[in-house]
């Protein structure tokens, strides 16, 4: 890696660590062994990640900087220094994105039949088609606005595309005139062209640019360039991502300028005059201008990966497998009565989780279903089942987290529908975001009331369950059920928090429990007993827990961490962290499970959690950490964690300086691709069980609702 962050601080900077993650994803896009559409997806992911990053993190840092806050972060960097470093790295990333797109991915796509054409390349029939499209559909909805540096600007949508048009001076005027044309939000970005095999398209901005003269009759267009601005996200979103900045930011909020522009992306072809004008008008620093040598908004290209008939350009399907322990023909209640169930998605089917809710909805013995819902999919079968249950008179309690970023509208929509069906809908817990993944079904049975619980690391979203790798733990053991009741009685405000029997919940319990577990390993080590900590998470940024890990490392505890994204812990530093290794897997599925293992003198304690080790998760969210007990489930979880740590195919190793290097197999560490191992094992187990059942049959809600 080109950059070496300083070795002076005990912590790595969180923003730069996040950018590093995106470089690792970018390397997937650059991986020539992958089919081109897969590579395009990875490139698109880096782009959407960057969008969010600018809105929330960069936006927050800029506000701090403007307010004159110079206090350094745990890594010793003040906001100004962080912003400078971020800008430098992000420019590199953008260059890599576009180089990769133009030089590698697009030529391969072209061969495969997906072709982006420039206007000059169109034949006359295609040109006529495009012109007709413009006049019939675009012209009526385009509204150019004249702008100047003096007048107030129209409110441009953040992350939307617009064209800047420079017009010749009026006959009596002194200088050129300027106008903006926002691209209609609901118009397709990719305009399909007739008469081509495969999929040929032109970009929307190209089409409008070609016809822009029609919008300014009688005036000469000097220059026309597409650009895109990124605004500082509003507070509700910031509560999510910028948790660690929140306290400082509260103080500077009064000075906040409404929706300031934190990034300007503009086509590289734009004239110097255009660039200068936009920069001045939007009050953007040079460092925040990204002149892009290709199409803007790479994230939109994700859609191309969904085109029909493009399977040859994608990797083969890894379909989720049924687990032999949970035959689809058997009610989930019976399955769980035989024993707790641990599922590893997406290798293993999400079906038992869905069926738990669906079967409960239709079961006359169900007393209540309670569930936290956060980022559910459109037409969610979970929501449909809850609605059905509520209509049947089952007591349904749904905690709908409205602060799930960028999903608010969708959430409110179906939450209203749930409430109308008779469910008790709670819109989150004041002051906290509820991030715990839990569902409990209370059922009256002849042997007594039984509670069936699902604890998970992922959201109740069967679609993301196909992309994210997550863990589900399902059980009807008394203690877990009682804890689920305590949890819901607390978040519904029915009761003040009482003690849990097995689980721990943030914001009160997880941090102290983790510290206790880490310190216990350190103490064992000091007393000469074997000790060890293995943990897998998405982000590690909590200074207190990092210090506890350093302390354990100094005591001699072997610590192996699998951290997918941000990691502020600096590993392998003598006298600080030489016993800590940090790796990151970036592969086909997004690593999302949180699994913690403490050696505990040879009787390992294993946990799954909804929480990363970040201040926002541990202090400002409602999260759950669940011990996985029961031999089969615990052994399986142990194996999953070990396999992740043994990956040598898709893993990166974090160096002391904050950079990452690709891990390679060697004599002691044979080639192993963890995700593939999971899939193969799931397949062979399903096969051995004599069936390979297709899963995730889309199940429509009982009464499909009209979208507004």
């Amino acid at each position, binding site marked *: 890696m080109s950059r070496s962050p300083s070795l002076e601080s005990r912590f790595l900077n969180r923003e730069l660590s996040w950018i590093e993650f995106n470089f690792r994803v970018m390397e997937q896009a650059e991986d020539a062994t992958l089919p081109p559409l897969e590579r395009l997806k990875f490139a698109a992911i880096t782009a959407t990640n960057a969008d969010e990053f600018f809105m929330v993190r960069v936006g927050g840092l800029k506000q701090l900087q403007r307010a004159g806050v110079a206090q350094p972060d745990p890594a010793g960097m003040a906001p100004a220094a962080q912003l400078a470093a971020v800008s430098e790295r992000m420019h590199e990333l953008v260059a890599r994105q576009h180089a990769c797109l133009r030089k590698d991915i697009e030529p391969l796509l072209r061969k495969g039949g997906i072709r982006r054409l420039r206007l000059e390349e169109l034949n006359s029939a295609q040109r006529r088609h495009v012109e007709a499209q413009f006049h019939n559909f675009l012209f009526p909805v385009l509204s150019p606005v004249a702008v100047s540096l003096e007048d107030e600007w129209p409110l441009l949508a953040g992350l939307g595309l617009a064209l800047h048009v420079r017009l010749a001076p009026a006959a009596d005027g002194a200088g050129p005139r300027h106008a903006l044309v926002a691209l209609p939000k609901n118009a397709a970005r990719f305009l399909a062209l007739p008469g081509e095999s495969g999929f040929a398209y032109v970009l929307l901005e190209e089409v409008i640019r070609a016809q822009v003269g029609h919008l300014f009759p009688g005036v000469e267009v000097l220059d026309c360039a597409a650009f895109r601005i990124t605004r500082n996200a509003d507070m509700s979103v910031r509560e999510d991502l910028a948790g660690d900045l929140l306290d400082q930011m509260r103080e500077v909020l009064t000075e906040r300028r409404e929706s300031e522009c934190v990034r300007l992306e503009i086509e590289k072809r734009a004239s110097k005059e255009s660039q200068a004008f936009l920069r001045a008008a939007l009050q953007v620093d040079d460092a925040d201008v990204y002149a892009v040598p290709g199409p803007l908004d790479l994230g939109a290209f994700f859609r191309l990966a969904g085109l029909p008939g493009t399977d040859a350009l994608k990797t083969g399907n890894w379909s989720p497998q049924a687990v032999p322990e949970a035959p689809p023909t058997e009610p989930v209640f019976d399955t769980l009565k035989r024993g707790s169930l641990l599922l590893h998605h997406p290798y293993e089917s999400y079906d038992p989780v869905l069926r738990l809710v669906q079967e409960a909805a239709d079961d006359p013995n169900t007393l209540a279903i309670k569930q936290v819902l956060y980022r559910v999919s459109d037409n969610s079968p979970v929501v449909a089942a809850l609605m059905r249950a509520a209509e049947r008179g089952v007591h349904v309690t749904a905690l709908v987290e409205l602060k799930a970023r960028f999903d608010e509208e969708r959430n409110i929509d179906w939450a209203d529908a749930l409430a109308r069906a008779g469910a008790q809908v709670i819109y989150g817990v004041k002051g906290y975001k509820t991030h715990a993944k839990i569902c409990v079904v209370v059922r009256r049975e002849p042997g*007594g009331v039984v509670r069936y619980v699902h604890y998970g690391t992922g959201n109740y979203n069967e679609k993301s369950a196909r992309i994210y790798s997550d863990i589900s733990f399902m059980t009807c053991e008394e203690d877990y059920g009682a804890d689920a009741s305590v949890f819901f009685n607390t978040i519904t405000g029915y009761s003040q928090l009482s003690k849990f029997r097995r689980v721990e919940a943030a914001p009160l319990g997880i941090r102290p429990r983790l510290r206790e577990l880490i310190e216990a390993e350190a103490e064992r080590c000091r007393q000469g007993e074997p000790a060890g900590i293995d943990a897998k998470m998405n982000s590690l940024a909590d200074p207190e827990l990092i210090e506890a890990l350093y302390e354990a490392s100094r005591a001699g505890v072997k610590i192996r961490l699998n951290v997918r994204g941000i990691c502020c812990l600096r590993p392998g530093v003598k006298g600080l962290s030489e016993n800590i290794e940090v790796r990151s897997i970036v592969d086909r599925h997004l690593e999302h499970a949180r699994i913690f293992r403490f050696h505990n003198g040879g009787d390992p304690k294993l946990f799954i959690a909804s929480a990363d080790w970040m201040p926002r998760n541990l202090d400002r969210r409602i999260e759950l950490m669940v011990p996985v007990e029961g031999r089969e489930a615990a052994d399986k979880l142990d194996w999953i964690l070990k396999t992740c740590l043994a990956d040598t195919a898709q893993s990166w190793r974090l160096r002391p300086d904050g950079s990452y290097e690709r891990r390679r197999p060697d004599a002691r560490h044979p080639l192993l691709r963890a995700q593939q191992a999971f899939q193969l094992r799931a397949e062979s187990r399903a096969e051995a069980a004599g069936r390979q059942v297709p899963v995730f049959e889309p199940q429509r809600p009982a009464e499909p609702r009209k979208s507004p």
Partner: protein
Amino acid sequence: MKEPLEQAKAVDAAAGAAAEPLRRLVAAVDIGSSAIRLDIGEIDAQGGVRVLESLRHGVRLGKDVFVRGRIQQDTLRRCVAILKNYARLLAEYGVSRPDQIRAVATSFAREASNRDMFVDRVSTATGIHVRVLEEAEEARLTYLAVRDILEADGLLNARSVAVLEIGSGGTILLYLKNGKVTVAQSFHGGVLRTREMLEAGGGAGPRLKGLFKAYASELVEQILQAIPREKVAALVVMGAGARFAAEQAAGEEQGEDPRVTRAPAARLAELADQLAPMPPDALVRRYKMTFQDATAVAPGVMTIAQAARALKIRDVRIVQATLRDGLLRDMALREHRSEGFEEQVVYSAEMLAARYGADPAHYRNVEAASLALFDELQEEHQLHGHERLLLRCAAILHDIGAHVNARAHHKHSMYLIANSDLFGLTRHDMQLVATVARYHRKAVPGPSHPEFAALPLEDRMRVAKLAAILRVADSIERSPRDAPRRLLFRREADRFVILVRDMEDLTMERLVLRTKGNLFADVFGLVPDVRELRAEPPGAMA
């Protein structure tokens, strides 16, 4: 295909499952001085209780009442909001019938000047019918809550056990001898009250500690006076302060029952010294407890420590049991109201009778005759087991007034009983027992007697019926005898004939019955008469 045998088994299993009835779901709501608590429980076939849900919400009812004498509007609104949520959870379990829910308000409510308004508002607004719990009833429920634990711990066979429930608003003492409750008493020294009183005086730090100590020793002194001067085998404590002490001062050696924690008295004393000077907010920070608990723990632990020292107990047993456990247990037992319970009540009645020097040879006979009459007249009076128990107590206690003065002793009996506690009976029950005893002789109940007239119609009828029986029983048991005799009854037109075996002379009985049988005739429409039953010659039976 499955083997036929397996199939048969499967069918059996399914049938067995279907045949097993659903378990009864019940709920106990405890509206206490510092918190409102709800337990939802499930009762199995053996009467065992499994707690499914346990909720609590802090309230300042005790603070309102102990400082201002009445419940404030804000507090009331908060109680209603909390109970509405509880009602929602109860609905989830289908727990809504009155026989499934016991909701009680404890010490604060007994003292609140606006208790009736409180009970009415809360009951109407939430659909949960709340009763104000009497002290005696609370003591009985406390006993029910700990009984199983004591039994498991072998303490029901112990010679003497003191049980202390140190609540926010009051302290309950139970003293057991060989498993029988011999003393059940409430003291107003609740821990919340202590804080209120002491902090009102502006105490803090060392001064606070001194006051706690003084207060605790006064409470312990009252406890010592209530129990016999003898070696106490075990001290069992419960309450919020006790639970905290269990966490902080548990000894190394513990028994098998996880509900019981043994805490050495020395450690408790240390803990008490450490806690006493700390203001509640410091406790909250240090021990991550609720504010309600924080106000309760220091005086609670202090009281336990001092009681242990006074009773010379080395290891205090702290039990995980609450009033809700007692309520749930009570509901579990309701179906087959246990003989154990009735025996316990009768035992305390006998203790009371003994205290006033009543003659067992007489009252045992009256008791037996009363019960025989009660059972015989079931058709006529239509009363149930509970009234039978009240009659039994009245029979045991009817003469205790003679201790004061033989003249008009029935009137002395009345107030002595009315002002005593029988373990397991409510204040209202005691009122009925007292009134029944009062009418065992002389005047019959009438509107000119204020105690009688003040009773609701239903109770007036119960008293009249029970008193009618007691008067007859008392009439026919004039002469002392070693053991109760067997009575036979016969109805002859409008006469109710009591046949007495082996009696030489019934003149006295007949005479008394003529004056005292009047109420019986009025109430049952039958004139009582007593006759001798001659022993038939053996051959005549055929």
